[in-house]
């Protein structure tokens, strides 16, 4: 079965033009392979600047990759013409971190929710408004709010408006970019619950971008961890939480307040490398780094179906599945050794 959305060797570099000096270019994403099946939720985690938003924008075709490709239902996004691209915005949607910035401050929220139907000429004005009113109910916005401007709503209500607008055209894939991180913790839980129930009833696939792993446990089927534009680890959410394979993932888990993991699992306060060159990008901060890590970029290794990792020293896996892990680790060590020989 072809996946709904697929990224292959996806790379993106931002160019900064400078006056009378050479331009700067910055690799925000470097060779990412990912795919999402219909209805599935993939969480993307990583610290600030790791390229999460860039990835989300490119999966939606908002921004063009500078390398690799993204395909939707098996078709390369770059092959869509302008009219088809417009049609595509019905299927691919996005919910932003800051709902206040995503809404027109002057316009009644019901008009904003109805707007996608008008843009795509899917309904007349009256019908669009009545469908918007239905959608408001679905996302838990009481009808009296319909004619208010966003200023008069709470943060959580605004995010519900943004979600409602994104869902109006019945999208098949929605990117939630830090959709709850600007909200109060109690409101976060409500919005997460809303997203979960909408996903169950609406059946859309989603990419859930966050830097907060706590949020992930509730919503994600799978988790992908990014560091400086590279995929560090990917796997089923339950496995990632129970047995992180990458020291970086474990460090992220250890950083969650109240985590049982030891302090030693956390990252050193080392300097963050900006340029991804030879060797592991994490080497200065990693608690288990060796001399090898500084010299050789670790390859991406498939541990099990749907479980991938980039590390020279993956963490041991707990007992029940030890055999498979050992095999994988053995294979990894072997492949590293052979690379060393050839180097």
């Amino acid at each position, binding site marked *: 079965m072809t996946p709904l959305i697929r990224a292959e060797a996806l790379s993106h570099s931002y160019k900064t033009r*400078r*006056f*009378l*000096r050479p331009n700067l270019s910055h690799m925000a994403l470097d060779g990412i392979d990912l795919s999402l099946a219909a209805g599935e939720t993939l969480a993307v985690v990583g610290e600030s600047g790791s390229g999460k938003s860039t990835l989300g924008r490119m999966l939606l075709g908002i921004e063009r990759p500078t390398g690799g490709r993204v395909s939707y239902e098996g078709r390369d996004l770059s092959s869509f013409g302008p009219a088809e691209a417009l049609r595509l915005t019905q299927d691919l949607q996005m919910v932003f971190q800051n709902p206040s910035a995503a809404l027109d401050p002057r316009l009644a929220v019901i008009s904003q929710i109805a707007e996608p139907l008008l843009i795509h000429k899917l309904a007349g004005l009256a019908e669009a408004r009545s469908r918007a009113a239905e959608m408001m109910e679905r996302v838990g916005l009481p009808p009296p709010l319909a004619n208010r401007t966003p200023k008069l709503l709470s943060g959580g209500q605004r995010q519900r408006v943004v979600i409602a607008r994104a869902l109006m055209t019945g999208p098949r894939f929605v990117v939630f970019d830090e959709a709850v991180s600007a909200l109060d913790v109690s409101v976060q839980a409500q919005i997460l619950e809303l997203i979960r129930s909408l996903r169950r009833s609406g059946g859309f696939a989603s990419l859930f971008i966050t830097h907060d792993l706590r949020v992930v446990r509730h919503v994600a089927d799978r988790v992908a961890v990014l560091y400086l534009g590279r995929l560090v680890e990917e796997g089923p959410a339950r496995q990632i939480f129970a047995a992180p394979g990458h020291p970086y993932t474990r460090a992220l888990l250890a950083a969650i307040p109240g985590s049982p993991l030891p302090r030693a699992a956390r990252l050193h306060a080392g300097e963050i490398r900006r340029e991804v060159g030879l060797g592991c990008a994490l080497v200065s901060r990693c608690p288990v780094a060796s001399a090898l890590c500084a010299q050789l970029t670790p390859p991406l290794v498939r541990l099990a179906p749907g479980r991938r990792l980039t590390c020279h020293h993956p963490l041991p896996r707990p007992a029940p599945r030890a055999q498979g892990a050992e095999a994988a680790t053995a294979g990894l060590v072997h492949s590293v050794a052979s690379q060393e020989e050839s180097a």
Partner: protein
Amino acid sequence: MTGFVLGRVLRAVLTLLVVLSLTFVMLRMTGDPTRMLLPDTASDEMVASFRAHWGLDQPILMQYLHYTGNLLKGDAGLSIANGRPALLVATERLPATLKLTTTALVLMLLIGVPAGILAALKRGSIWDRSVMLLATLGFSLPGFVVSIGLVYLFAVWLRWLPSSGSASLRHMVLPVLTLGLAGAAGLARYIRVAVLDVMERPFILAARASGKGRAAILWQHVLPNAAISLVTILGFMVAGLFGGSIIIEQVFGWPGIGRLLLETVGMRDFAVVQMLVILFTAIVTLCNLTVDIAYGILNPRIQATAC
């Protein structure tokens, strides 16, 4: 620093080039002045030879290249009115304008800066109100109204000063006063805001809390910071002075380049008009450039973001 200066210089050159090209195209767009300058009875051959003589029969691009080429050699063509080099015609009137504007600039700074500081320091007092009232009045009045008021007061009523001409120093008083006062009005308003702005910044509050005296705060913190914002609008004020000088020269019969511009535009003396526009632009751009660089030195933080 050199990159910053270089960027500014490039921008100044670009300004000159754009203005030169625009005026050139515009001046040539309405056709040539042959018919206007020759008598109606002129024969076709006369017209043709006149046009050939002045290069008016060439395509406009050729005329343009020709003109810029010559300009770089210091040749801005000849005045159609009297056959003298346009560069000479324009520059010989320049000192009069510079005399007017520089004196007015000094007057503007001497009045505007202290008045603005006074208004800010005595904010809300009757001093503030009076300064602001006068400043707002001056700011709202066109130069020619002010000048006519001053002429009526000093020349007609009091008979202290001559109303027009440029023969003596006394002739300078009214034009300089008009130009300088109008500038001072705008400047006082600006300086007042700038000083108030500085006084509300956290480091001033911190200095005050640490028990520093009022005078010390004023001289060490407020004024130096306000001076930086003065520098930022100085170039702009200078442009205003030159724009204003055109009207003032016309009112007072002051023989500067502003009045020359009006005369030559009326006669369609292209070469001189073109030269005058370049002259105005060059002077103002040079002032802006100096101010920009001074600002860059005073406030090194902007260099990184400037380009």
